[in-house]
């Protein structure tokens, strides 16, 4: 354990935990791809909110390679993979309760997405 001392505070606050990793991993998707969100119901940690599971959206941006929370939370390694922003229509997520113009943008790791194309 490396105790945080006062001299380290400015660096720690300025650096944080980027979670971005500098490894080459091939992306499964690219902007414009239509994707279906996996219907994940694992007890383990994940960052996949229930309201998008099973829904169809479009990849808008590839943010690069990040640590995967599902394994990282359980000391099972970083399993680095791409993170994308995926856009959903309000209608896709909420049916008639969604405003026809509105869109929800959610960030998702590669393992959370399957091709719907």
């Amino acid at each position, binding site marked *: *354990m*490396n*105790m*945080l001392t006062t001299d*380290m505070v400015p660096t*720690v*606050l300025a650096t944080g*935990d980027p*979670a971005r990793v500098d490894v080459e991993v091939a992306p499964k998707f690219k902007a414009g791809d239509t994707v279906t969100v996996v219907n994940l*119901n*694992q*007890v*383990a*940690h*994940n960052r996949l*909110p*229930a*309201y998008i599971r099973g829904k169809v959206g479009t990849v808008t941006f590839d943010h690069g390679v990040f*640590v995967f*929370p599902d394994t*990282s*939370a*359980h*000391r099972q390694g970083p399993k680095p993979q791409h993170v994308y922003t995926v856009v959903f229509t309000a209608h896709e*997520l*909420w049916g008639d309760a969604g405003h026809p113009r509105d869109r929800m943008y959610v960030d998702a790791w590669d393992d959370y997405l399957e091709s719907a194309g």
Partner: protein
Amino acid sequence: MNGIHDVGGKHGFGPVLVEQNEPYFHEEWEGRMLSMMIACFAAGIYNVDQFRHPIEKMDPRHYLMSSYYEKWLCTVEQNCIDAGIVTRAEVDARHAQLMEGKAA
């Protein structure tokens, strides 16, 4: 996990209550909790995902009733126990001692 934390789209929570001129910390211990959370992270006791998971595993009633800093206490304490730095019994005993001191 399908925990209580995953609230997106749920009905019934009522209006969003906004506190005007909200202070940075409502109580002194909140600042201690924030800084302890960062110090323990910097010491390598947990990463961001290990930090989040115990909050998701809180009793749903406790999760909904507690402030964010109380949730942070739960996960920092749990992570420090899991890392073998403290035991629950030690924290319980010190907590009881401080409460007795206050009551006296």
